[in-house]
């Protein structure tokens, strides 16, 4: 409860800070609009040559792309601003200031600041999902929308967990900076995982769980949520969060701070 209140305060402060720079705001919106429009245009060109892409119709692929944008927006709003170049905080000892504060360190280190401009991507992503839904042959039922929301929550939890795990590597190997790789591999989520060939598909589902951020939520919305998928998703999501908490604590034990 206290963490939620704190989180609210963090968002509100960051929002006020960013609204002060209006030119930045407009430019960022423009970038987001261009990015999303180009994604939609790319999909449209593909579907001019074919009716289905690995079993996905155009409207379904649009729902998937919108879901991808929503989760990407959450990532760039709440998680990335904290963890980009996290390794530098570990090597320079800047992490000390964080550890001294009377709040859970994993929370503060991974969600302690945010970039609310990224919420424009969440909003536009939702619009894209709505466009996709309106083109679907059979409209969504209440249960499929609920399934989408649950899987979206799972996707966001896995996103946070995977990003924190990548950052936590810095405790053991401060020289490996995987920020750019993470961002690059993230792009694989733009399309259904079924288009990739087998070894890659397995990796993208279970090792780098890109499938959970877009393919599975979109499947829940367009094809109806199967109870098995929902249960598996919830289990994986909770498991990922538990792993992060364990790894974070183990990592902190290796952290030697700036002055020691």
């Amino acid at each position, binding site marked *: 409860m206290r963490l939620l209140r704190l989180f609210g305060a963090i968002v509100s402060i960051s929002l006020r800070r960013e609204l002060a720079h209006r030119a*930045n705001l407009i*430019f*960022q919106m*423009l*970038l987001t609009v*261009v*990015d999303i429009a*180009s994604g939609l*245009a*790319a999909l449209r*060109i*593909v579907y*001019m*040559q*074919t009716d289905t*892409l*690995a079993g996905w119709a155009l409207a379904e692929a649009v729902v998937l792309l919108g879901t991808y944008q929503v989760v990407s927006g959450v990532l760039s709003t709440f998680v990335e601003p904290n963890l980009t170049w996290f390794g530098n905080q570990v090597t320079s000892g800047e992490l000390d200031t964080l550890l001294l504060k009377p709040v859970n360190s994993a929370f503060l280190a991974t969600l302690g600041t945010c970039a609310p401009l990224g919420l424009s991507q969440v909003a536009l992503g939702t619009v894209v999902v709505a466009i996709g839904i309106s083109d679907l042959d059979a409209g969504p039922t209440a249960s499929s929308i609920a399934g989408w929301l649950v899987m979206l929550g799972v996707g966001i939890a896995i996103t946070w967990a995977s990003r924190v795990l990548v950052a936590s590597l810095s405790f053991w190997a401060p*020289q*490996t*900076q*995987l*920020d*750019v*790789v993470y*961002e*690059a*591999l993230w*792009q*694989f989520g*733009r*399309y259904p995982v*079924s*288009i*990739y*060939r087998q070894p*890659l598909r397995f990796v993208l589902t279970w090792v780098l769980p890109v499938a959970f951020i877009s393919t599975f939520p979109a499947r829940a919305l367009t094809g109806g949520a199967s109870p098995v998928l929902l249960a598996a998703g919830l289990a994986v999501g909770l498991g990922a969060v538990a792993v992060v908490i364990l790894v974070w604590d183990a990592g902190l034990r290796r952290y030697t701070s700036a002055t020691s």
Partner: protein
Amino acid sequence: MRMLRLLAGYVRRYFLEVMAWRSFLVTLVVNQSVTPIIGLAVWSAALPGNTIVTTYYVALLAVQLMTVSYEHHTFSNGIYAGDLSAELLKPQPVVLTTLGVNVALRIWHVLVGLPLIVVAGLVAGVSFDSSPVLLAMPAVALAAALRFLFTYVLALSAFWTERAHGVVGLGETLIFLLGGAAAPITLFPEGIRPLGEALPFRAMLGFPAEIASGSLSEMQVLEGYGWQACWMAALAISAVLVWRSGVRRYTAVGG
């Protein structure tokens, strides 16, 4: 002649400098390779059995690595930090250092990315004929020059705005969509294909890959080279003009 010797010196220097952070370089190569690889996967799924499109994307991966440009990092950041002051004092064109870094990074990208290109080619079952590949070589060189000039001009926006990285990002999105990474220009719908062929983005990325994959007739190859030449002149002139008006705005404190 002196310029060339200086340039070669800078390339050698930065080639060695980059070697010091080669593990980070691997992450850069992965980052650059993702869009062509996704394109390969998407289009192999959309048009199963079409060997031209798979060949095209393997070639595109190679072109992408040979034409990478990071002037927003290597040049704009120098404007923001004031490092440009030292460059301005050297008895040589300022662009020479930036160009040296650019070439060194491209050599590294190709070296590190070569295994990836080979694996992608083998997995996709692609085979190249020698004559289209030879025909594509000058186009690769022109594309590399164009991509450098384009990114350099956008990076020069750092003289006016704090958002040069965003400006270059916008340019990269355009190259992705209209340069032949999202979809080959040859598969664009009839109505907008002539536009896609004429815009500079295809000249920077997709055109050499189209030649190498044998998707173009001789006439189309000639036309493409024509567009590359036009854009070369246009971008070179704008680079000079933008640099001249930008450098007058430059101010820095200390030294």
